[in-house]
């Protein structure tokens, strides 16, 4: 079995390669066109010039026809053949005939053109002779004397070699000029393209020469045409830089948040070994338990954040039903062992509300919000609503607790930014929820309701962000 390979033409990958191909095609087609035009013109010029010689020769012969006493005679002058003999490679012959067609002189195989019978008008044509094409001219002459009267004909034939030589000579020169000018233009265009593309090379070299740590603006001398590109690159670097800085400070704070309770745990365990009274041991165990609880929460939130940021980048959104999701969230996020009694209110306006989204990220965000509200906020009531707005779905989680003071609202969604009392959460929950909201084309906002409830509002775009942009 033979493999059939479809030989498909592929365009070059580089702009330079493509332009080179385009320019080569244009110049080649142009040069071919110019050569064809030159050939047509040269042929016409050569034909006209040699035809003129042939006609004058035939005219001179015809002038020499005479009639006396009813007999025709011709004595062609030498000059009639001089010009024709100048083309050394060519044969020529002629025939002069009386009005009744009798050959007066010359070659009998040469016949005059039939028409028209007008005095002195040359008629041009071609014949084949001895395997060669020959040019012919026929001139009729009206002879009128006493006993003889009628149309005598003169035919002169000449082979074409001299014409061919002239065409070849002309074409050689014109062709050389066309090729020279074309090649010059082609090379000049290539150089122009190369120069136009050079700034890209410079930007590329400048980027390649950078060290990984270097995220400052790109220092490259660039013409105004590529300035926008350089600015875009610099803007990207700037954003990357910001992100890196944020990540670095996040890692620093996270390390602190993990190491502090670990150190405290170690210290309390050590003290437990040397404690004498049951009372003080009990106090130590209580503290160990509190630190452990804090560490567990932090671990969960760090894992939650890692998962959300992974899913934000890679998981495609699908249809999510929010009412059922919220019921699960309420069941998961409110501890059964909560000391306070709580009135939880969730009566959705419609039994089913669908949005495009990632259910796992949304659940993580909402669990964090509800858990925050229950553990730090709600003293007696938690109220959850899902409202449908024209462009967004709004999930509001309100509680009658102290909430976050307005001056901290803008910082609250940054990781580890809220001041924390001992034993409180570590402050990733709101930042996770804000990230998830953003990934769903929405926002996370805070509000105080008319009856003094603290409310967190998470919005989700009703149509996928990409569709909205279209």
């Amino acid at each position, binding site marked *: 079995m033979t493999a059939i390979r479809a030989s498909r033409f592929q365009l070059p990958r580089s702009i330079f390669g493509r332009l080179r191909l385009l320019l080569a095609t244009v110049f080649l087609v142009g040069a071919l066109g110019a050569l064809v035009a030159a050939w047509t013109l040269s042929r016409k010029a050569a034909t006209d010039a040699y035809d003129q010689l042939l006609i004058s020769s035939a005219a001179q012969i015809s002038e020499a026809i005479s009639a006396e006493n009813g007999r025709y005679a011709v004595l062609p002058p030498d000059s009639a053949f001089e010009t024709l003999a100048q083309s050394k490679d060519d044969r020529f012959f002629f025939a002069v005939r009386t009005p009744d067609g009798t050959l007066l002189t010359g070659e009998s195989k040469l016949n005059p053109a039939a028409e028209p019978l007008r005095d002195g008008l040359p008629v041009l044509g071609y014949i084949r002779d001895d395997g060669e094409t020959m040019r012919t001219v026929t001139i009729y002459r009206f002879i009128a004397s006493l006993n003889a009267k009628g149309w005598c004909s003169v035919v002169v034939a000449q082979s074409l070699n001299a014409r061919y030589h002239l065409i070849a000579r002309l074409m050689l020169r014109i062709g050389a000029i066309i090729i020279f000018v074309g090649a010059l233009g082609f090379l000049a265009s290539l150089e122009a393209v190369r120069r136009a593309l050079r700034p890209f090379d410079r930007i590329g070299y400048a980027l390649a020469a950078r060290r990984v740590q270097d995220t400052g603006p790109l220092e490259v001398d660039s013409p105004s045409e590529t300035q926008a590109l350089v600015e875009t690159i610099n803007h990207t670097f700037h954003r990357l830089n910001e992100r890196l800085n944020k990540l670095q400070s996040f890692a620093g704070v996270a390390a602190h948040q993990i190491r502090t309770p670990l150190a405290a745990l170690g210290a309390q365990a050590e003290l437990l070994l040397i404690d004498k009274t049951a009372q003080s041991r009990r106090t130590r165990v209580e503290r160990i338990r509190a630190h452990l609880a804090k560490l567990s929460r932090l671990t*969960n939130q760090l894992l939650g954040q890692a998962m959300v940021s992974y899913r934000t980048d890679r998981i495609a959104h699908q249809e999510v039903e929010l009412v059922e999701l919220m019921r699960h969230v309420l069941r998961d996020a409110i501890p*059964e062992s909560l000391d306070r009694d*709580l009135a939880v*209110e969730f*009566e959705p306006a419609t039994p089913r509300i669908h949005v495009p989204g990632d259910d*796992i990220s949304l659940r993580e965000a909402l669990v964090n919000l509800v858990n925050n509200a229950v553990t730090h906020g709600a003293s007696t009531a938690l109220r959850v609503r899902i409202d449908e707005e024209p462009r967004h779905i709004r999930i509001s989680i309100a509680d009658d607790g102290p909430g976050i003071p307005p001056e901290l609202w803008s910082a609250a969604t940054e990781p580890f930014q809220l001041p924390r009392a001992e034993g409180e959460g570590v402050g990733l929950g709101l930042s996770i929820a804000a990230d998830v909201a953003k990934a769903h084309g929405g926002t996370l906002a805070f509000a105080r309701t008319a009856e003094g409830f603290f409310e967190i509002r998470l919005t989700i775009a009703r149509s996928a962000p990409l569709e909205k942009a279209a």
Partner: protein
Amino acid sequence: MRILVVEDTPDVGEGVVESLEAMGHAVDWARDGKTADEWLRDSNYQLVVLDLMLPGLDGLTLLKRLRERRSETPVLVLTARSAIDDRIGSLDLGADDYMVKPFDFRELQARVRSLLRRHSGGRAIELRYGNLVFDRSARTVRINDVPAKLTRRELSLLEILLARPTMVFSKAQLLDQLFGFSAEPTENNIEVLITRLRRKLAGSGVEITAQRGVGYRIVET
């Protein structure tokens, strides 16, 4: 109540068993999936506390087999896996609740109590009595088709009483099912709770009546 704990990590298993025994339950502890599967076939448990990562037979398979045998025993899943997919998967396979390790033992006790309470009156999702409808999955109550604003504890109390209408529950029983033995709330809390619930049930066609010296029950008026 008889509870089966399936957990292979000794330190965790010990804690779970101890804290369930402290609640007054009889606890069996299986340390691998195969043993647990055998015990579940042979005996009747009122609740299973199931770790997902097990040697031999894993927790999800165990759960699947249990549900294939049409057992309605409530299952509380323990998992240390980070992905929430795991939790959703186990809920789809018929787990009734789940907790992510590390967990608080007080929360474990509260969840166990709530699971036993929810399954005391069968698995019906809706409890109807008089003009009152209790939706157990959404945890809402409607009186004459109007949502009633009940707190979580009021809902739990109503759920206990509704599971066996007309049966009398003592204050101690209610206290145990609501808060557990070691909890601080007193019988006085129960009285306050009953009073509040009575007020909210006005016009529902059911009422909570006191049997002096015995306890409380719910009846149709």
